[in-house]
């Protein structure tokens, strides 16, 4: 059993309790996708590709009054310690759904009736918080694809580890810690669009955890903006 936090409040990977892991985002990494992003979030390595708005197949899924959004969150067989069967698991199907719902109020698809915007996410290497990192990449890829958006969606988890509320739970902390709370946030609209919790929190810890996670989302938001700037306004110039 790993010691998750030392006496100085330093976590097993050397971070402070309020510190997120290293995050880097690269925009427009896939030639064939309409928009794309690659994120490294701690040891997470994730690609997101966006196609659309385009025709819907099968056609009965189309909405006459609006475009629809679809999402697939998928893990490569080599992304986790034990080789993963390539067929989508129930966990992946659930995460695909909550990611879709987290993005849904951010995208504006009213002007694209009978079309679909497809968001494909591939987890090349998984670490704690992969659904948040996936959302961060997907949100940037949607911007890169030119999909009209009300706000960015920025995601980060908080949790409880060694009896402390900590920001951005990594893999060891997720497995041996006490609680994990992934959160997605629209930073300008102030809305939480994804939230889950596994683990036991007192009401006070719950509040603190939520606030901590939102603080993380705001940090991620700055990184997302910077990544987009780098592609669209080279050297920070407009």
């Amino acid at each position, binding site marked *: 059993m790993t010691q998750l936090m030392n006496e100085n409040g330093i976590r097993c990977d050397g971070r402070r309790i309020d510190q997120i892991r290293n995050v880097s985002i690269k925009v427009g990494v896939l030639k064939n996708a309409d928009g794309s992003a690659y994120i490294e979030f701690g040891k997470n390595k994730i690609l997101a590709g966006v196609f659309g708005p385009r025709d819907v197949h099968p056609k009965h899924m189309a909405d006459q009054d609006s475009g629809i959004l679809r999402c697939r969150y998928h893990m490569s067989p080599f992304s986790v310690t034990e080789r993963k069967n390539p067929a989508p698991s129930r966990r992946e199907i659930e995460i695909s759904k909550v990611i879709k719902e987290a993005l849904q*109020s951010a995208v504006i698809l009213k002007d694209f009736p009978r079309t679909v915007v497809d968001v494909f996410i591939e987890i090349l290497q998984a670490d704690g918080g992969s659904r948040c990192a996936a959302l961060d990449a997907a949100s940037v890829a949607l911007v890169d694809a030119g999909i009209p958006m009300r706000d960015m969606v920025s995601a980060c988890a908080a949790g409880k580890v060694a009896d402390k509320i900590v920001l951005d739970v990594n893999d060891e902390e997720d497995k041996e810690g006490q609680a994990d709370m992934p959160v997605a946030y629209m930073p300008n609209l102030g809305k939480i669009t994804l939230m889950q919790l596994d*683990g036991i929190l007192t009401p006070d810890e719950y509040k603190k955890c939520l606030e901590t996670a939102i603080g993380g989302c705001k940090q991620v938001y700055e990184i997302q903006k910077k990544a987009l700037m780098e592609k669209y306004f080279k050297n920070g110039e407009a």
Partner: protein
Amino acid sequence: MTSSVIIEQLKREKILELLSQGKRIDGRELHDQRSLSIETGVIPKANGSARVKLGDTEVVTGVKIQPDKPFPDLGDKGILICTAEILPLADPKAEPGPPGEEVIELARVVDRGIRETEMLDLKQLVLIKDKSVIGIFVDSSVLNTDGNLFDACSYAAVAAILSCTVPKYEIKDDAPVLVEGVTSKPPIKTTPVSVTMARIGDHIIVDPTADEEACMNARITITTNSDGNICALQKGGSDGFTIEQLIKCSEIALSVGTKIRKQLEQLM
């Protein structure tokens, strides 16, 4: 079809109009649940069972307990598996076939509510470490839908577990053999209670009906344990919550949960 679409539209307008006056279409207060009836022992061939009616939403859960192999790396724990299914007779829109994403989410949220609260002490369900453990299968079938399947399935699953009896197994030749006629109570540590709320505009309502779900902007399910802690949470729906709303929801979940927990614990 057209006339029913118009009725749906009128119903929605009515729900929103009443909510603006702080009222609900079925006369409930915003934070009231519908009447909840729980009957256990309805499937005598199962090791535990319950039939739950939450308003017109109706669920049967059966618990089957049988020896199994442990999961790899979890050889010191029994197995707990919770499933959920919306029977095609429950809803004109339900279809036979493999479960869609809504049903998978339903099953996983019910499962996590029981797993994350550590309702069952799975370490007490080991027959031979790493080789043979007791498996508890908690299968919920929705018989009629009228909104808030999360809570109805969760209450039925919890009630079925609380009321189940665990058969006794002896080890003979490295294999578990049933000891007829001897059973024990399941190793219960806490009673999880999930409370599902919907946000419609700025209003948070508890235990939405199907009509209310058709109007909602977002949904949240919060599961609490007997100690007043928050143990599992799932946000759903295509819009979001503010942080204040989420804190309010946690308070509602705790206070509503306390009443439900009393009703469930009477079954033990």
